[in-house]
């Protein structure tokens, strides 16, 4: 916690900062959003995952479930109307 305070600066942690003040402190923004930026970079580097046969079958099964249920809902609507 003490490290965080030093990193962010006493004024940022103790003073009453407003949005306009923060806008004028790009260094503070960068420090504060460092974790955010690192994570975004990490996620953007992640590509498509390989779908094994079991996983493919499961996802297709769930999709067929929705299509089947759509037909059921249409049947219900036709019966009701």
């Amino acid at each position, binding site marked *: 916690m003490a490290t*965080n305070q030093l990193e962010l600066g006493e004024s940022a942690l103790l003073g009453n*900062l407003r*949005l306009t003040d923060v806008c004028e402190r*790009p260094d503070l923004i960068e420090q*504060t*959003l460092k974790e955010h930026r690192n994570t975004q970079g990490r996620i953007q580097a992640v590509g498509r995952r390989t779908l094994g046969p079991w996983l493919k079958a499961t996802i297709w099964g769930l999709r067929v479930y929705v299509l089947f*249920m759509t037909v*059921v*809902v249409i049947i219900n609507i036709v019966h009701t109307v």
Partner: protein
Amino acid sequence: MSVNAPNREDAARALDRLQVTRARSKRGRLRLLWLLVGPGILVMLGENDAPSMLSYSATGSQFGIGFFVPFVIVTFMMAFVAQEITVRLGAVSKAGHAELIYRRFGRFWGNFAMIDLLFTNVLTLITEFVGIVAGAGYFGVPSYAAVGGALAVMAAAFMSRRYWSFERIALLLALCNLVFVPVALMAHPDWGAVGHSLLTWSPIPSGFGSQTVIILLADIGATITPWMLFFQQGAVSDKGLSVRDIPQGRIDTAIGALLAALAAIACIIATAPLFVHHMNAGQFGAAQFAQALVPYIGQFGGALFAFGILEAGLVAAIAIATSSAYAFGEVTQQAHSLNRSFKEAKSFYLVLMAVAAISGSVVLIPGFPLEFVVLMVNVIAVLTMPPAIGFLLLLVNDREIMGDHRSGWFLNGLGLFVGVFVSLAGLLYALTVIFPSLHV
């Protein structure tokens, strides 16, 4: 983003993070919680929307105080299980739900997920406006004025230009959902029956025919729907929650589930007098419920009930339109943050307001089968839920995305249980539709 050119979104998020860091360094637990709560309460109370409150009203009026009171608590527990996962996904990945699905499973599967989301969102949004119009109608407000007024309130919330301000405005509106608690008290409920139902899950509806199954499914759909996953993960990411904030995110979601369950049970209790007095409320809309309840809860109670339906529709319309715009922005890789101005994120705000305006306009079309759409929308939401839960579980167990924050065997077990339960409820519905004479 260059250090010399910070945009407004970054500055707003940095300011929010600085306040969180300050609260944490001063060990101000309540202050910290106050800063971090929002997405969970908003999503849970937002899901107590107009069709949901009408489902609970139908439940109370057709089955009284019994099996469905504890059942609703269980559905909110299941909603908590699903929504807790979105807190972790949002905090760990800082990305929205649609973005992660497209990134990890490709455009083919991503498009399916988006079709499910947009289809259910548009239908649900229409029903929110049905609730707004019906609730306002009770007070003599014409339909077009109700729709216009709702759009104006939504625009005011969206144009606050800060996620934080938007969230607090929406939270204030969402807390009005608890108006159903005083309405329930005005109905002078039999507390012995309430306690008995909570302990014994009885009386159980005799024979699970298609109508009972539709109510069962509607009550599940009143707590677990695809838009909730997209909204909360998007909101957690937009709010800028970090991994350290996950415990507060969980508390936020738990508080939301608790408040929403309270409002839902209050609605069932409030409408139970219609069951006791054998009133046929099967085809009631929002205004008819409020009118029918007047002899039991008085004029003021009826007005509160109508206001509750109006408010439920308004809050959900805000949340659902936002979830659509988040998903659209994530998929098209356009700016999608409530911390940005209209100029910086034109497509985001245009999608937000266009989705709301189109849905609101549909309600004004003469002869549109509104009551039927209201009845079916929660059912359809449940039926599209299994693939959404499937992707949710796959993402939260993805080592490359979640690292050490993947679900353990216990959380995976709970998640699987929710997925299987929702799927089986859907199959039960299918059986009663295909074999109408079937009684389980």
